[in-house]
């Protein structure tokens, strides 16, 4: 599969009478977006706002961040199985509004979190402070159940991102990158002297606000399978989870997975990047055994010499991570695992809820228990009234002056386990 990813660079976002892109500026019509979002009978109102890098703006509680994309050549459309028909994507050409994002907010449950600060110390911890964000605060109709509210908010974000992505269809990209993975034997033969490396992509799959979707399927219900990496760039994997926002993959993270991009960067140089094995992180222990057996089986079946394994979340997924690592290593395939840590506020406690000697190559996205003080911002998009109840917050987190003392857990993407952040640790 060969995908051309054409980036249209967006340097600013402004309100306008109609949605359009001109000279690198994304113009957003409140009326057009509202009409689109309010097609859903579950949504009472939507407040649309803009947040740009450097502004004194705090966005919270963030549900998802989505990059506008459109498929311009090749089979299928963006976000297959959800927004577009269930067609296998990942080849042809896709256009991206690079530098822009759709951010959804909503108070689905009382302890929700996810903070994006556009300036100040908090901005350093989230990649989304660098983007021109179209923020939607979504209010449900009276009496709507949490599951339905979550689904409505998720769909509103995806529909808006697809709608804005459509603006890029006929534009000439500022930059085009080409990614290609060939069918298995062909790919193995292309670089016979290089080590064959695969990517085991663990997806959060535990329940409400803890789910991920693959081609529209709830990933709790899949068994591990193999994807071409480019399918993920076309939106084959979508986020439905946001609790403990520091180490949850938003849809933006999936679309721009830096492990996939790094593996492609070394493809044909140091390694032969063979493809992606997706797997889940279910609550039922027998599911964990089955899924980790299958990921290990696939690494061997694909003839891999090495595998990168990335986790999503904490606790329950630590067990999946270690099972994957142990079983893959037992097949004779070397692993590097990517995780984050809950090592206590002083960083001295055990980081993960599970461990094994086979996990001897570990990359960390940082310690989620680290404390931070986020100064007050001039403007809050969304609401702050739940801040004491967020993961990483505590009684007194929200101070009278509007500043917040909390663990970096509260910041969207702060300890991302795909490495889409600046934190890590090194041994000397």
């Amino acid at each position: 599969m060969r995908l051309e990813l054409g980036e249209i660079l967006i340097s600013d976002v402004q309100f306008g009478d109609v949605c359009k892109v001109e000279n690198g500026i994304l113009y957003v019509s409140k009326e057009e977006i509202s009409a689109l979002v309010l097609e859903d009978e579950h949504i009472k109102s939507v407040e649309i706002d803009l947040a740009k890098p450097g502004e004194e703006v705090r966005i919270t509680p963030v549900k998802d961040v989505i990059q506008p994309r459109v498929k311009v050549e090749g089979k299928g459309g963006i976000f297959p199985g959800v927004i577009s028909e269930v067609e296998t994507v990942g080849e042809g050409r896709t256009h991206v509004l690079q530098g822009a994002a759709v951010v959804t907010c909503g108070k689905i449950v009382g302890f929700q979190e996810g903070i994006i600060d556009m300036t100040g110390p908090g901005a350093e911890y989230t990649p989304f402070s660098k983007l021109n964000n179209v923020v939607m605060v979504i209010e449900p109709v009276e009496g709507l159940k949490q599951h339905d509210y979550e689904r409505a908010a998720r769909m509103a974000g995806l529909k808006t991102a697809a709608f804005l992505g459509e603006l890029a269809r006929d534009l000439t990209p500022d930059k085009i990158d080409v990614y290609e993975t060939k069918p298995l034997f062909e790919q193995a033969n292309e670089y016979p002297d290089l080590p064959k490396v695969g990517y085991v992509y663990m997806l959060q799959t535990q329940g409400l606000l803890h789910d991920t979707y693959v081609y529209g399927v709830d990933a709790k219900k899949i068994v591990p399978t193999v994807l071409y990496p480019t399918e993920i760039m076309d939106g084959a994997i979508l986020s439905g989870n946001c609790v403990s926002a520091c180490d949850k993959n938003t849809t933006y993270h999936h679309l721009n997975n830096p492990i996939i991009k790094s593996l492609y960067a070394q493809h044909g140089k140091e390694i032969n990047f063979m493809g992606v094995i997706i797997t889940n992180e279910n609550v039922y222990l027998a599911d964990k055994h089955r899924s980790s057996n299958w990921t290990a089986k696939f690494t061997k079946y694909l003839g891999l010499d090495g595998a990168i394994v990335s986790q999503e979340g904490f606790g329950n997924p630590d067990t999946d991570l270690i099972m994957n690592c142990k079983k893959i290593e037992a097949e004779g395939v070397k692993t590097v695992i990517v995780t984050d840590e809950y090592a206590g506020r002083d960083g001295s406690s055990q980081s993960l809820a599970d461990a094994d000697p086979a996990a001897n190559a570990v990359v960390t996205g940082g310690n989620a228990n680290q404390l931070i003080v986020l100064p007050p911002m001039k403007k809050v998009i969304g609401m702050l009234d739940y801040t004491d109840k967020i993961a990483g917050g505590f009684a007194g987190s929200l101070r009278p002056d509007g500043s917040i003392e909390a663990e970096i857990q509260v910041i969207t993407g702060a300890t991302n386990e795909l490495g889409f952040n600046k934190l890590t640790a090194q041994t000397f």
Partner: protein
Amino acid sequence: MKCKVITNNAKLLEADALKTFDIDEVIYMDTLDIIEVMKTVRNYIHKGHKLLTHPLSGSVKPVETPFKSVAISVDPATLDMQSLSIIGDAILMAEKFKRNENRALTIPESILDDFRLIDYDLIRSGLEGINNF
């Protein structure tokens, strides 16, 4: 497969909460201390019950949420070392979070209900797997 559920989440006691699942027994504990629930699970594991769902389910950290529901096997057999290891690590982790939480967490009832809902949904996803066959 039948199972027992150990929980401090009253939502599981509601009439239709678990009606689609084949549950042998709901062992309800009237406490907001999640570590007590985990220690009860550990006691059952020592008696030979097997852990069926992960005690650190969900991304809301132990202690940050006061609710936990865990499924175990119905009939005791020989001690399952993996179950014991998982529950032991979970208790250590929960105690660590308790140490971190040095300010009393006062949670209004409406938010407790949201925590109950999330815990219920997490155990339900486990029970769906357990009840497949």
